[in-house]
Each structure stands twice: as C-alpha cells, then as structure tokens.
C-alpha cells in the first residue's frame, strides 16, 4: 500500500492563498487506509482551512468530496460538475492521484495535500514501515521474503555490512538490519547455505534508472484505447 502523510498546513495555505473557493478532494484508496486522506481527514482539513482563513480575515469557501480512487479517470469524471464551481482542487491522494486529477482537470489548479512517503505496511494503528521500492525486478525469492532494496539502508545485495549491530542498522538503531532478518529467516527455513551464493550486481534499468516506466499488455488492451 502507498503510505502518505498530510503536508504541513503552512505549505497548503500557501498554495491556496490566491483562491477563494477550493475543493478538498479525498481518495478512498491507500490514503484512506493510511489515515491521511480519506473522508474523515478531508473533513478535518476542510474545517482547519476554513478556520485558518477566517482567522486571516480572508474567508475561504471549502467544498469537500471523497471519491473511490483518484488514480482512475472514470471516478474523477464523476465530480466534473463540482470542479466547475471551484478555483482549485486540493488533492489528498498520493502522487499518482494528484497527477491523474491534474490531467483530468487541465484548466484547474490541483495542489498536493499530502506527501507521498513510501510503499509500506501498516504495523499498528498509526505506525507504518517501508517494504518495497518498486525496483521492477523482485529478488524476494533469494532473500527469504525480506527485501534488501527497500529494507537495507544501503540497498546492498550481499550483506550484512559492517554496520549491522545486534540485528539493528547503524543508520538508525530503531531499524532492523534487513540482512540480519534475511539470515535469521533463511536459518529458520534451513536455507542459510543459500546465502553463500553471491548475488550479481543489480540491473537498475528495470528501476527508475531506466527512465519513467510504463507497462503495456497487448493481450488485455481494449481496441478503442482508454
């Protein structure tokens, strides 16, 4: 799941300073699950913005709406009539949703309301941790289901490094050493010998180093296009 966190209010107020009427747009996908931009957060932020602007003596009219997902054009289509009436949209979706929204409404200002942080797991109510970097070529088969790319601070492929201390990482003592976890899990599965295999240098061209990525599956595509 994509994990996001609401942006500092000053930043948001800065974006909206020129507007009189905005639509705070929540998303019912990942940002609802990670408690950053669902209907509840949309309501709270709307109220906060109205109060902040009231205090400045420049009232802001705030409309609010939360749609199923902002990363699908069809869902955005459904709010076209609402968008017409506002000066700008403050999107609480992840970076993907914000961009889709901007693409769907080319004549409107679309401002980001959250910082998209990482792809991660929900450990507890209010606690999230990174698990994947979408590097494009999964190695979890070789590393006991623990990702060295996302969970090792150095993303090294034949760890641990010298900074691994009592199962913790030298970069941050609260972070588990991914390679210690990999070793322990493989040992538990009786596969620790497999660590003798030296993993080759990773081909980062599948990741961001190859430029923006795109996935096309001709076997699934509709003839008419989007």
């Amino acid at each position, binding site marked *: 799941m994509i994990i996001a966190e609401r942006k500092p209010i000053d930043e948001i107020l800065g974006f909206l300073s020129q507007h009189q009427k905005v639509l705070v747009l929540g998303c019912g996908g990942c940002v609802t699950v990670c408690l950053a931009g669902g*209907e509840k957060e949309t309501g709270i932020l709307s109220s906060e913005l109205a109060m902040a602007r009231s205090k400045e003596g420049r009232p802001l009219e705030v409309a609010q709406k939360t749609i199923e997902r902002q990363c699908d054009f069809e869902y955005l289509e459904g709010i076209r009539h609402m968008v017409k009436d506002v000066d700008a949209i403050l999107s609480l979706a992840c970076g993907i949703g914000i961009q889709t929204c901007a693409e769907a409404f080319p004549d409107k200002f679309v401002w980001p309301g959250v910082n998209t942080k990482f792809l991660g797991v929900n450990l507890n109510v209010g606690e999230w941790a990174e698990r994947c970097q979408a590097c494009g070529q999964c190695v979890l088969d070789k590393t006991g289901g623990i990702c060295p790319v996302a969970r090792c601070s150095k993303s090294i492929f034949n760890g641990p490094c010298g900074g691994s201390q009592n199962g913790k990482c030298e970069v941050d003592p609260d972070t588990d050493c991914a390679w210690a976890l990999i070793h322990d899990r493989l040992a538990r599965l009786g596969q620790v010998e497999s660590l003798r295999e030296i993993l080759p240098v990773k081909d980062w061209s599948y990741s961001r180093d190859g430029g923006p990525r795109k996935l096309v599956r001709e076997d699934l595509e509709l003839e008419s296009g989007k």
Partner: protein
Amino acid sequence: MENNTRIGVFFCNCNGKITEKVDYEEITSEIKKLPQVEYVRDSQNLCAHLEGELICKEISKNQLNRIVVIGCAGSREEGFFREVLVKAGLNPHLLSMVNLLGECCAVHEKNPQVKVKSIELARMGVARAALLEEVKHGDVPVNRTVLVIGGGLAGMETALENAARGFKVILAEKEDKLGGRLARVNSIIGVDRKPAELLDEKVKAVTSNPAIEVRTNTRLGDLDGNIGGFTAWLVKDGTETPVEVGAIVVATGVQTIFCPVKYGLSIADNVIGQMKLERLLADGKDFNRKNISMIIGKGTEAFNLPFVIAVKNALLLRQKFNATVNLFYTNIKVGGDNWEKMYTDARAAGVNFFKFEDNIEIAANNGEIIINYEDPFLGNKVPGTYKITSDYIVLPEELVPSEGTEELAGVLRLELGPASFLSIDNAHILPEMTSRDGIYLAGSCQMPGFVNEIEISAKAVAEEIFRKLYDEKVSVEMTQPYVDATKCVVCLTCYRCCPHGAITIEHGEQYENLYKSAAVMNPLACRKCGICAAECPGKAIQLPDYTDSQILAQLEAMEVQP
C-alpha cells in the same frame, strides 16, 4: 432525510419549574419556524400517565414521525416516552429529548441569555430529531455449546453448571486427566471435605454427564468469530480440529513457583513451600512436636491466598501435632469470611506470630534452621537481633498464572491484568466478565482465589451465558454501529481499535465495494461505545442514535457570534 419527515414537539412545563425561567411562547414561536415541524404543544406535566395517551393520539392524528420532548432528559423519562412512541406505532429511537430543565432552568437564573440558550437547545433537539433513524430488532442464530478451558475444579464446576442449564459443554484439559491442582492439596479453607474426595465426586459427575464432552491433552490453538458463533481450534497431539461454540470459559487457574533463593536458601528436605507442606500432610507425614517456622512476606503480598494458607496450616500443625509454629510476617491480610476468626484461633492456639520488616536472615545448618530477625515492636524495648531455631522452614510460593496464560490471552484477544493474570472487565460489570462478550473467567485465572468461591463464580458465568444465549435464536435490538460498505475500505482500523473484539471483516456479494467486503459489528458482542465510528477514516461507520450527521446537526443549529 425522508421528505415526509413530520416532527412533533412536546413541551413540558414540569409543573412550572421550566416556565419559571423561560417563556414557552418565545421558544415555540421560534420552533414553529423550523422546517418539518408540524406540531407543537405544551403541557404542565408531560410524563403523567394520561399525557402519554394524549401524545399517542396526537402522533396518530397529525401523522408525526419524529418526536422532540423539551423538558428533562432523565433515563426514566426517556424510557417513558420511548414506550409512548411504541404505543403510537413509532420506532422508539425516533425520539429526541432536550434537557431544558437540567441544562438551563435548574442551573441558571432568569435572564436574557437563558432565553437565547433555551431556544438554541430546542433548535438543536429539533435538528437532531430530523435525522433520527429507526433501529430494528433482529434474530441472531447462536450456537449453544460452551467451551470450558481447564479441567480443574473451576472448569469442572463451570461445565456442570452450564450443562445444568441445557448447554452442551466441551471441557478441554491440557493434561491427560481432570483434576488440576486441587489433587495436590491437603485441606481446603472453608470447605469441610477432603480435596481428593471432592475431586473424585466432581470428576464422576462430569464424566457421567452426557452433555459434557471431556477432551484431555487438549489446548486452544486459535479462535475466530464472536459470541454465539466462535470457531475454536483445539490442538491435540499436534493436530488442530475446529469446534463451533457459542461461549468460552477460561478456567486455567494458577501455578506456584517455589523460590527459596529469594530467602537465601537452597532446596533441602527441611526447606519447603506451602504446597509441599500440603503434599506432606496429605501423605500423612508426622510433624509431632516439631518446631516449624513459616514466612509470609517479600513480594507475596499481592493476594490474600498466601496469608490464609499459612494461617490455616499453622493452626493445623499446632492443633494436630502439637507443634511449635512460628509465623514470621510483614503484614497479615485475612479480610474475608471466617478468616479473621481463623487468625484469632491460631493466636489462641499458641501459634507464635513474629513481625519483621526487612531484616530477616535464614540459614539452614545440618538439618537445623536458624532465623535471625529484628522485631520492630519489641525492638523499641529490647533492641537487637532475635534468634529462633527450627526443624523446618516453610516459605510462601510465588503465585503466577498457569503456564501458557499469555499465549492464551493472545488467542482470545484479551489483555493481561495485574501480575499477568487474565484481566477482568472494569469494575462496572461482573467480575467473571472479560472485555469480550462470550468469553468469561472462572476460578483463579484472573486472581488466585479460594475453593469456596468457585461455585459462585461458576454459577455466575453459567447464568451470564444463559442470559445471552437463551435460545437457538436470540432477539437483539440492532443498536450496534452499521457500516456503509460503499465507504468501507476494509482498512482494519476499527477492528484494531475495538476494545471488545466485536468486529470482524465479512465477505460477500452484498458488500458493494471494490473488495466485496466490509467490517461488521457483532450485535451480541458490541457494547455500543462508538470508538470504531470515531476511528473510521472513511466515515463508513455510524452508531445508531449518535450518527455523525445527528451530532453535526446539533452543532450546525448553534448560533455563531463573532
């Protein structure tokens, strides 16, 4: 909101107590301006019996379907007006009460602000009324099998009590036979029976009862579901088998740990714990004219049990064997039925009670126990260390929850309380209840207890289970929160936050969202606190009578002044 909402407002003077401070006409003229208000009426005393009938008639005549009562809002009055609504054929939840007496007239002097407040309170009540929703009753099918975990005295007693109320019982015992710890004890406080006899009788009663199925060498491995519909995974010899049960009783008891090191001693024939002493007494060991010292203190003071056992055994050794018994104590806790008497009896029988605070030294030399201690009472007159020599030293054991209690708590989704025993629900409710309905505690698993309390505890548990699962189908008012599946993103926030484990994620075509799933609150397990509704990031959860729109409408009805 329905278009045909017709609100009726009934204003009570409360025999003049209300109109003494506020003006009826002023309030009603404001209320009449509000949309959907079709009927306004006042009365001297709205909760009088005849008034109820009149309200009924007015409701029918004017086709009212939301009722606002402006007057007081006590629970007695609320019950009265809900009944009136039912008599008039309306759902009792379509009632909004405005506490004009309690929030305004009784606490303020007559002044212009009181007028403003009274009108505002009335407007808030009407705004809420417009958004009230019906709450229906539902029939919930329930399983009437009870799983009892632990085959000690408490478990057996609970099994028998439940069987007597028509339940099927599965009694799971982790050892290879029933009986638990009582088999190791010589005598029981407050029960005039030999433990072995009592146990035999209970084991026979349990094993001969056709409603009780005993499963030995069995423990609980996993648990799904809620009251009336648990699936319990029972583990025997490494294999898990599911059983469907409606309620679970934990009777896993307590265990003792003998720790002489704490007193600077090591294990020896004459250094024993109270449990070992019980065992020796039951086996018929002779303590004739021996000198025996006992200690109570150093961290065993959390419960009454160690005190009472020590006094019991001291008295027994004194009376039966004419032994010299020295009881060293830091504190004596004997608050309970007849225990105080047992304590005075022990003193009268010549048991020596010696008070110490910190300074006590015990040494075991060639079969002789030497105790040096400082007495805080005598010390004022004759300072110095006192020395006592004994044949035996009896130490209190540590009382801890039986092995595996923590894992069991995890499986049951219960919290551990003081000293890591299973935590009971808060003091407002029965001491046998846990934070989850359908899961109960009997015997010592919540706190080391006494045999003579077990019967009461077992009965209370069985009654509580019967109250909830009185038939194959039970009727409940569906006041638990409901979920708008189109907004539910099955994020698990509510599931994780529910203090009563009452929420499950259900799957099915009826849930109209991407996941074909939604959180569902169990009507029997839910206690209607609304925590889940407040946590829900998608605003998918609403608690009947306290929906977001009802609460926000009250805020909306307030005047804002710069």
